[in-house]
C-alpha cells in the first residue's frame, strides 16, 4: 500500500497527515470515525479514512488547491468535513473552519480576510450563503458541497459536489500515486495547520494561526495527562470552528488514534450520546445543566418509592460520592457500603440514562460552572473536570488532575505550560502551544505576545495555596475598591447567579467604599417559591419588591458572602448592600448584549440614581424607567425600590 510507503521511509510523526497515515498502518482496522446515517451507525476504519482523505486531497489538488492556500470548512460535524481538514493539511494548505450558524454577512468578513478560494460546505443552506457573499469575495472560486439535496438545479459553475471531486481525486491518485506522498513528505511541523477565528466579541474576529507542532504538542500533553488512547471514543457535536472541538475531535483524535462519532443531527445529540456511550466527553456547563434539569423533572413525576430512593441515595452521594471518586481517605465503611448499593440502584442507571456509563474523563469549560451542578455529576461517579484555555493557546493551559478537583479552580498548568500572574492580575502563558501569529495582524500579535514570549490572556486570576489557577474575571473588568481590596465583578455576579433564584446580578465597587449589587430575580424559580408560600403577586415588578423575596435574596447573598470571606484574596468583595431591580435586564433595552452579558457601563449610567441611593445609605429609592415591549412599543415602569443590607463576614485566614 502506497499509504504506508511514505511512512516507512519517513517515520516522523510531526504533522497531522503523517499521523493519519501512521494510524492507517498500525491500526488500520480500528474505527476512526462513525456517523449515524439513516438510523444506523456507519464506521470508517483508519485505513478507509486515510483513503477518503487521499481522494479528497487529490481531488482538491486537481482543482488547483496549492500549498499555502486556505480552505474554508463550513457545516455541522460531518466526517467529510473533518477529512477535508486533513486533506488540506496533506497538500500543505490551511483549513479555516467557520461557525456554521453565522449569517452570510458574518462569513463574508472571514472569507475576505483569509482570502478564501476554496470552500467545502455541508449542504444547500451553506451553499446559499456562499453564493450570497460571492460578490464581496471575488477570490472565492470553488464551492464544494457534501449533501447534494436541493442543489440539482443550481447552475453556478463554481459549484461541485464532493462526490465528483473525490472521484476525480481517485483517478488522479491512480495515475500519480507518488504525488500525494510527496506533498505529505514536504510538510513541516512549523507549518500552519489551522486557522481558527476568535469569536470577535471584543471587536472584529482575528485569525489565529496555529502550527502542526503547537496543536500536536497540546494534544499530546492532554492525552498523556488523561491517559487517552486508541480505545477511547468521543462524541463530536460542538462547532468545528471552536478551538475545543478542533483539539478534542481532530488534534487529540489524530494524535491518540481514538474514534470520533458524528451525531445524526443537532437535535439527536442526547440520543446519540446514549447509543455511543463515549469514554471521553466535553460539554459547556449549559449542557450539563440541561441534562440535570431533564433528570430532575422526570424524577418529580416518578412514583413515591422511586423518588424516595433517589432522594435518599443522592443524599448519600452528596455526602461521600465525590470523595470516593477522588480516592480520598476518611470515608466510613458504612458510607462506602451505602454508596456501593446506591451505585447499583441509582447512580449506575442514572449514568446510563445520561449516556455517561462509560465516561472516564469529562471536561467542561467556556463559562463558570455552578458548584452544585459540578458536585452532582462528580458525586454520581462521573469524572467531570474543568480546563482553561483559549483559541490562542490551543485550549490547553490548565487542567484539573484526577483526584485534585476543586469546583472553583481550573486546575494546574498542563505539562510544558508556564503560567505566571502579571502585576495587574492578568494571567500570562508561555509554552509550545501558543499561536504563531494573528493572521495579517503583526501589531496585534506583538501586543498579545510580549518580548519574553508570554501570551497575555486578558483574564485575571491568581494561584491558590495548592497551586491551582483560579480565573476570576476579564482583566479589564477587575478593579479595586476604595480600600484597595481586589474587586472582580464577574466573579461575584457568577457566584450570585449560581443560586436558582437569581437570574442576573450587576456588582459595583470600582473605586467605591464597598461592593453593592443590583439583582434580577428568576421569575420562574421565585414565582414557584412564592406560590408554595401563598404569596400573591401580580407580575415581576410586584414580586420583586415583596419583603419575603428580599429576605430570600438576602439569604443567598449572605451565603455568597460567607464563601467569599473564606478566600483571602476576595474577602473584600463581599456584597454590603443590594436592591432588586423592578424590571428584568433586557437586550432590547440595551442592558444586555445579544449573548446575554451585562453591559456594565450602560447599566451604571442608566440607573445612576439607584447606585447613588445604594451608597448614600437610603432605605428606598423611587425610579421610573422606559422599557421597550416586544412589539416595539415603549412604556414606563416605575417603582419604589427597597434597599437592603447584607451581613458581612470577617475575612478568614486559612492556615496554609
Amino acid at each position, binding site marked *: 500500500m502506497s499509504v504506508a510507503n511514505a511512512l516507512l521511509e519517513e517515520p516522523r510523526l510531526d504533522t497531522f497527515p503523517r499521523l493519519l497515515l501512521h494510524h492507517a498502518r498500525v491500526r488500520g482496522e480500528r474505527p476512526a470515525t462513525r456517523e449515524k446515517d*439513516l*438510523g*444506523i451507525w456507519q464506521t470508517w476504519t483508519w485505513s478507509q479514512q486515510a483513503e477518503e482523505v487521499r481522494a479528497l486531497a487529490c481531488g482538491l489538488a486537481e482543482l488547483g488547491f496549492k500549498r499555502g492556500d486556505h480552505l474554508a470548512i463550513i457545516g455541522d460535524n460531518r466526517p467529510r468535513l473533518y477529512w477535508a481538514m486533513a486533506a488540506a493539511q496533506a497538500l500543505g494548505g490551511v483549513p479555516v473552519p467557520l461557525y456554521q450558524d453565522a449569517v452570510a454577512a458574518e462569513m463574508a468578513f472571514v472569507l475576505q480576510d483569509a482570502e478564501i478560494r476554496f470552500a467545502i460546505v455541508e449542504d444547500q443552506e451553506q451553499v446559499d450563503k456562499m453564493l450570497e457573499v460571492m460578490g464581496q469575495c471575488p477570490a472565492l472560486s470553488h464551492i464544494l458541497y457534501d449533501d447534494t*439535496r*436541493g442543489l*440539482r*438545479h443550481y447552475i453556478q459553475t463554481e459549484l461541485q459536489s464532493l462526490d465528483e471531486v473525490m472521484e476525480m481525486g481517485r483517478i488522479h491518485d491512480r495515475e500519480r500515486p507518488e504525488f500525494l506522498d510527496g506533498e505529505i513528505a514536504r510538510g513541516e511541523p512549523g507549518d500552519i495547520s489551522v486557522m481558527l477565528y476568535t469569536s470577535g466579541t471584543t471587536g472584529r474576529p482575528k485569525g489565529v494561526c496555529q502550527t502542526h507542532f503547537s496543536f500536536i504538542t497540546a494534544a499530546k500533553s492532554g492525552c498523556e495527562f488523561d491517559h487517552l488512547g486508541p480505545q477511547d471514543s468521543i462524541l463530536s457535536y460542538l462547532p468545528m470552528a471552536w478551538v475545543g472541538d478542533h483539539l478534542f475531535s481532530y488534534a487529540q483524535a489524530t494524535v491518540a488514534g481514538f474514534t470520533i462519532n458524528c451525531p*445524526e443531527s443537532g*437535535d*439527536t445529540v442526547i440520543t446519540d450520546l446514549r447509543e455511543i456511550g463515549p469514554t471521553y466527553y466535553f460539554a459547556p456547563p449549559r449542557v450539563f445543566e440541561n441534562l440535570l434539569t431533564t433528570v430532575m423533572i422526570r424524577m418529580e413525576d416518578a412514583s413515591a418509592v422511586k423518588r424516595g430512593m433517589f432522594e435518599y441515595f443522592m443524599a448519600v452521594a452528596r455526602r461521600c460520592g465525590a470523595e470516593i471518586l477522588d480516592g480520598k481517605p476518611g470515608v466510613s465503611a458504612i458510607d462506602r457500603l451505602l454508596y456501593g448499593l446506591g451505585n447499583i440502584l441509582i447512580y449506575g442507571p442514572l449514568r446510563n440514562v445520561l449516556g455517561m456509563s462509560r465516561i472516564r474523563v469529562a471536561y467542561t469549560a467556556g463559562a463558570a460552572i455552578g458548584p452544585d451542578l459540578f458536585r452532582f455529576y462528580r458525586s454520581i461517579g462521573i469524572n467531570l473536570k474543568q480546563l482553561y484555555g483559549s483559541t490562542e493557546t490551543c485550549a490547553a493551559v490548565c487542567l484539573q488532575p484526577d483526584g485534585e478537583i476543586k469546583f472553583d479552580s481550573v486546575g494546574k498548568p498542563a505539562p510544558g505550560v508556564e503560567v505566571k500572574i502579571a502585576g495587574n492580575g492578568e494571567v500570562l502563558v508561555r509554552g509550545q502551544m501558543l499561536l504563531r501569529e494573528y493572521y495579517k495582524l503583526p501589531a496585534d500579535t506583538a501586543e498579545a505576545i510580549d518580548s519574553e514570549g508570554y501570551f497575555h490572556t486578558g483574564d485575571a486570576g491568581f494561584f491558590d495555596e495548592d497551586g491551582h489557577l483560579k480565573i476570576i474575571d476579564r482583566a479589564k473588568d477587575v478593579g479595586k475598591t476604595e480600600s484597595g481590596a481586589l474587586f472582580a465583578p464577574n466573579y461575584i455576579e457568577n457566584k450570585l447567579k449560581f443560586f436558582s433564584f437569581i437570574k442576573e446580578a450587576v456588582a459595583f465597587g470600582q473605586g467605591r467604599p464597598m461592593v453593592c449589587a443590583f439583582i434580577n430575580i428568576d421569575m420562574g424559580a421565585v414565582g414557584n417559591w412564592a406560590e408554595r408560600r401563598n404569596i400573591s403577586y401580580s407580575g415581576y415588578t410586584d414580586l420583586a419588591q415583596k419583603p419575603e423575596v428580599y429576605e430570600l435574596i438576602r439569604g443567598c447573598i449572605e451565603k455568597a458572602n460567607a464563601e467569599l470571606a473564606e478566600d483571602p484574596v476576595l474577602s473584600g468583595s463581599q456584597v454590603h448592600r443590594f436592591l432588586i431591580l423592578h424590571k428584568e435586564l433586557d437586550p432590547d433595552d440595551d442592558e444586555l448584549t445579544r449573548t446575554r452579558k451585562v453591559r456594565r457601563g450602560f447599566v451604571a449610567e442608566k440607573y445612576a440614581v439607584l447606585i447613588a441611593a445604594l451608597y448614600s445609605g437610603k432605605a428606598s429609592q423611587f425610579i421610573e424607567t422606559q422599557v421597550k415591549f416586544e412589539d416595539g412599543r415603549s412604556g414606563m415602569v416605575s417603582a419604589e425600590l427597597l434597599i437592603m443590607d447584607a451581613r458581612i463576614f470577617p475575612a478568614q485566614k486559612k492556615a496554609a
Partner: protein
Amino acid sequence: MDKRIGEVILSFQNISLSFGGVKALTSIGFDVREHEIRAIIGPNGAGKSSMLNVINGVYHPQEGEIVFRGKTRRNMNTYESAKSGIARTFQNIALFKGMSVLDNIMTGRNLKMRSNFLLDAIYWGPAQREEIAHRKKVEEVIDFLEIQHIRKTPVGRLPYGLQKRVELGRALAAEPSILLLDEPMAGMNVEEKQDMCRFILDVNDQLGTTIVLIEHDMGVVMDISDRVVVLDYGKKIADGTPDEVRANQDVIDAYLGVAH
C-alpha cells in the same frame, strides 16, 4: 424554471357531487399535469376537500368523468387509487397517536408489503429481508423530513407542526406519484409554514412527485404552486397560473366580498 412539467395525467370533466339537496360540486373540470404543484383554493365551504375526496375515491360524483393515466372512468375507488400511487394527508391529522413516528411512517408501506403473515410472525427469511428494505425506505423519509430526533417518540406527544410533518412522511413512504395535501399548513406558525413549504418543494423537485394541495394561506399558494384552480360555492371560478388567478375579478370578489 427548468422544471419538467409533463403531460396531463389526471383530468376531470363536468364533475358534480351532491349530498341530498346540497350541491357540493357543480360541473367542475380541470386537469393535473405530471410533476406540477396544483393548488385548489377557495373560501370555506367552497368544495375543496370534497374535490380531493373525489380524486382519491372517497366520494363518488353523480355526474362527470375522470381520466386517470389515459383511462376514463365514472369515479375512482380508494383501494385502486392508493394502489396506483395516490397518497394523501388529512386536514385533521389522522395518525396513530400511541405509535411512534417510525411505526406510523411504516404503515405507509402497507400496500408494498408482500410476505405472508406467518413468516412475518417469526421474522424469518424473506419477511426479514422485506422488513429491512421497508425500514430503509422509512429511514430515508425520516432523513428527508429531518425528523430523526423524534423517530421513537409517540406521535401524540408531538407538537402540531411536527405531527403534520409525520403525516406527510407516512404519505411519502408509499412512494406516491400523486400526493394530495389537505391544508398542509393550517394552524402552523410562520416558521413551521416555511419548513413545510420547503419540504413540499423538495418532494416535488427531488422525487418528481405531482402534488395537489388545498390551502387557505393565499401567500403560500401563490409562492409554490404552478397552477391554481379556484372554487366558490362548488363552482370553478378561475383556473390558471398564480398571477392570472390573482388578477381575476371573480376571485377578488369571492375573497374580498362584493357590494350588491
